[in-house]
């Protein structure tokens, strides 16, 4: 019987419907094309592209990466091609293949966020914007917005006023109360919350007595941060009424199911794409297998069913 059980992986994320809850996280999958030989992109719930700013950005001086136990600290510095080149050279590849595309955006001022959101409003192929309010890498960038609820709120309002696209707001774990931050961006009009971004971190060399990153401080990602991310998602789900996307150290189907269990309606997979470029496919198949074994036909029936006292 279980072999014939029809499996429905589709999820509703407020205004967006995805064929399955598995997306790739911004900054870990380029603009989609980079992995197209390896991953059948049409299988993905959605692709979240590398964060885009109004103007191209060169990024941080190297070294930009350092590996830590079960983790990776990066200080890429939001290098990207800028909105013009994104629209002319990068997006058409995904649009042609009808891949649901979420564009991650960031800026240095509220006005810049508004401007880039306006430029993407009504662009064919874009299903949502994800606002990066929390990237810890660039001094002038998101860190201020992401740590202060009123600043985060004004940012979301500016983007809301500039676009009719669904808005996902991506939260940083580096706050006193992620629940308060979530409520602030919900009240400001975000449709969806994604969390978490990387955890601010650093690494040093005791022999050279130098930092291991050109930017000194970077953001930790990978399996090392999964328990932190799971706790954040749990707290955010409890505090808001809008859908939540879980991100942080997901390496296999079991990890993804943990996030769905605590109430995330979808997940994004990031750093593990580097170790195993087919991880997203493995996760989708693994969720299906789990559902067959557990006799669950709709993934929606599993989401948020954590039993607490």
């Amino acid at each position: 019987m279980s072999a014939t059980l029809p499996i429905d992986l589709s999820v509703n994320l407020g205004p967006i419907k995805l064929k399955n809850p598995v997306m790739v996280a911004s900054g870990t999958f380029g603009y989609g094309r980079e992995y197209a030989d390896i991953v059948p992109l049409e299988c993905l719930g959605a692709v979240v592209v590398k964060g885009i700013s109004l103007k191209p950005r060169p990024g941080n001086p190297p070294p930009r990466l350092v590996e830590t136990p079960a983790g990776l600290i990066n200080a890429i510095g939001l290098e990207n091609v800028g909105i013009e080149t994104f629209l002319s050279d990068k997006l058409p590849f995904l649009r042609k293949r009808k891949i649901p595309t979420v564009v991650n955006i960031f800026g240095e001022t509220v006005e810049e966020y508004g401007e880039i959101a306006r430029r993407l409003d009504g662009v064919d192929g874009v299903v949502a914007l994800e606002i990066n309010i929390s990237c810890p890498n660039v001094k002038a960038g998101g860190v201020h917005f992401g740590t202060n609820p009123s600043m985060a709120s004004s940012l979301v309002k500016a983007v809301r006023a500039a676009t009719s696209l669904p808005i996902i707001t991506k939260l940083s774990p580096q706050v006193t109360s992620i629940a308060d931050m979530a409520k602030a961006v919900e009240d400001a009009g975000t449709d969806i919350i994604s969390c978490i971004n990387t955890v601010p971190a650093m690494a040093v060399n005791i022999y050279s007595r130098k930092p291991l990153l050109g930017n000194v401080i970077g953001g930790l990602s990978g399996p090392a941060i999964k328990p932190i991310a799971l706790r954040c998602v749990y707290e955010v789900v409890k505090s808001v009424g809008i859908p939540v996307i879980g991100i942080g150290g997901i390496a296999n189907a079991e990890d993804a199911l943990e996030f769905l269990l605590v109430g995330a309606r979808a997940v994004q997979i990031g750093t593990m794409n580097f170790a195993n470029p087919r991880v997203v496919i493995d996760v989708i198949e693994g969720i299906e297998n789990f559902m067959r074994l557990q006799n669950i036909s709709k993934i929606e029936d599993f989401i948020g069913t954590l039993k607490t006292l």
Partner: protein
Amino acid sequence: MRKYLERAKIIRNLPLASSIYHLELYSPKIANEARAGQFVMLRVTEDFIPLLRRPFSLFRIRKEEGILEIAYKIVGKGTGMLSKKPEGEYVDLLGPLGNGFRLPPPGTRDVWVLAGGIGIAALRPLIESIKGAMPEVNLTLYYGVKSSSELFSIDDFSEMCDGLRCSTDDGSFGFCGNVLGCVIHDWETLGTIPSYLYACGPTVMLRHVAQWVIDHSIPSQFSLESLMGCGVGACLGCAVPKKSDGEPSYVHVCFEGPIFSPDIIQWEKLL
């Protein structure tokens, strides 16, 4: 150029020289596609330590047999674990990656290939393809290491190249000094200068060789190495500073390289 993710069977994984191993893998899809100067990202473990794949140059591409050879040096946890993998086990390979070497322009007479340490591992397919496509080229390999215990495949290289000049920092074999020292010695004593040059080795060596080729206007291609996250241009973690007038600018070793013309790199910012 198509990339593949392939489970490759280990055919051989044995010591080749001091802390250097020789890995042979059955990986027919990648072997069929690969060119000289390209690399693969190898996943050492399915566990999370180390988390990332490791980039390796291709030491030999045996297309017909579907075999790739890698010569690697044990430098840390990842390569240490790799060296313990027995024959018959499988490893996960992503490749072929990067741009690869271009042949020297038609009519080139003298080509010098400079290898520093394990940098030799990226140069064997280059030598093979130059000698295959342009047999008239007079090719000299300058191969430098710290000490003679690190030299390998000397007979092989001696047969493939028109000239082989070995150097060791400690003077235990060949010229006493580094590769560039040997090159400069030959240039000064013999008065010869190459019409084209290739180099692969530690960054400090490449930096000095870059200065020399730029000073002497010798067209050249260098193979760079870098820490890498993805190997495919997604993470942008392998940036190296590029010469620029205004704002900082970077090139990425994994997809714009690993082969670069040395005059575009801002070498003084690289160390």
